[in-house]
Each structure stands twice: as C-alpha cells, then as structure tokens.
C-alpha cells in the first residue's frame, strides 16, 4: 500500500475569487524578501507617515482593522511601490548588486556593507532618502557606517 503514488488532484487550493469591484484595487508590491530588506530603510524614510497611520488605524479599530484600514493599507503599498520604482529607475545597478549580495549571504546585512554604501550614496544623491537607525547610541558610529565589521567573513576594512 505504501507503494501507491501520492495523488493530489487539487492543485489550486487558494480561493481565486477577486476582490469586489467597489473596493479600489492596488497592485501588490511583488518584491521578494531580499529587495525588500535592501530598500527597507528607504521605505521607512519616505513612507513613515503612511506606515504610522496604517498601524495606528489597525491598533485603534478594535479588532476590525483588516476591514476598516484597507484605504490606509493601499496608501502604504502605493508608497512602498513608489520607492521601489524610484530606486529601480535611478540606482538599478547598485540596488541589484546589494540585494543579490543579501540573497547570497543569508540576508546578513553586515556581509554587504560595500554594496550597501554604494546604494545608500546613490539613493541619497538621487532621491534624498537616507538610512538612519533609530535608537543608535549617540556616542558611536552607526553600525552600517563602520568600515570594519567584526562579524563579516572578511572582518577588515569593507571598502
């Protein structure tokens, strides 16, 4: 009996019903984890207001946030998509290099500092978005600007 081939006759196990037309549609972000990790801080910089608005709406809607915060959610997605689009148009080379590096290094940001610095510089010059880590102690260099990374495979100067 154990020899029987497994049969799985329903390939589609997701409900394919589209959203009702009265709810405005938005194109989903469609990016995988590495590009999103790469642009996360730029999304955070440009879309902070939308993000906070959405999370506040969800927190205050008393458990009905999924339904009531669709509008804010669309704004969040559109804003993030705009960041991705801008980065793609202006800094495609640096962006691709960085997220491919992340992809190859198990999403460890400290392995890709050189690419990250190039990307940050390009994005800051072209788009004016800046990577800032909130809560960093003020008397030390932020970790993404340190030339030496203790935990990188090559711990010496990264650039």
């Amino acid at each position, binding site marked *: 009996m154990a020899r029987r081939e497994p049969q799985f*006759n*329903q*390939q*589609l*196990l*997701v*409900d*394919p*019903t*589209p*959203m*009702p037309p009265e*709810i405005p549609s*938005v194109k*989903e*972000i469609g990016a995988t984890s590495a590009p*999103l*990790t790469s642009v*996360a*801080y730029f*999304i*955070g910089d440009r*879309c902070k207001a*939308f*993000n906070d608005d*959405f*999370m506040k709406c*969800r927190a205050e809607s*008393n*458990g*009905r*946030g*999924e*339904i009531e*915060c*669709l509008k*804010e*959610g*669309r704004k*969040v*997605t559109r804003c*993030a998509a705009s960041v991705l689009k801008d980065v793609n148009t202006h800094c495609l080379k640096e962006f691709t290099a960085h997220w491919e590096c992340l992809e190859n290094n198990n999403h460890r*940001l*400290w392995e890709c500092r050189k690419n990250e610095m190039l990307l940050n510089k390009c994005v800051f010059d072209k788009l004016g978005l800046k990577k800032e*880590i*909130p*809560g*960093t102690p003020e008397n*030390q260099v*932020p*970790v*993404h600007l*340190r030339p030496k*990374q*203790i*935990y990188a495979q090559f711990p010496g100067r990264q650039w």
Partner: protein
Amino acid sequence: MPQDMPPVGGYGPIQYKRNIPARGFRPVTYLVGMHLFMVYGYYKLFYGIREQNELAREKIWGRIHILPLLQAEADRDQVRRHLADKAREQELLGSEQKVYHSNRFIRPTFVYTPSEVTQ
C-alpha cells in the same frame, strides 16, 4: 657485646631529592598569563556584543519599516477571502449567519478550497 654506634662524625647526607631541574617559567607567570589572555578575550567579547546589539537593532528596524507593507498585503488577502466567503454564504443559505458573538474580524479556522478546480 659491643653495640653498633653511628660512625664517628655522624652519617653523611641522604639524597632524598631527585636532581631534576624545574621546567618552564615560574608558576606566577602562568597565572598572570592566563588572566591577561582572559582579559583580552573579554575585551573582544565586549565590543563583539556591542556590535551584535547594533546589528540586531538594524535588522529589527528594517523589519519594522516594511512591516506595515506586509501587513497591508496580508489584510487585503484576508478581506478578499472573507468577502468571497460571505458572498458564497449568501448564495447558498440566503442569509448571513453570525458564528461569533462579536463583530471583530476573525480569521477563519477552516478555509474554502475550490471543489472542482484543477489547474
């Protein structure tokens, strides 16, 4: 009978020590050396932990920045399925049945899978 007496002038010294030179440095050198080694290790560990904390902060803030985006997408999917479920229920039963005594959004325990669809 004459008694055995020690020789005149006493016995000679007995060699109870082995004549082997002590190897290595003085013991205090090893003690101090070990502590210096440990101090160096803790010094590196201190900065290593500091850097780990900062790396963790960087990672979590990256996640926090994209979290609303991911949440919005997941919510939209949930709402789409929820509305589809309600429409299906309306079509089959002709009325809306409330399962929970609450108007909160509750993720369904059992989800609908299309019955005769093979892709």
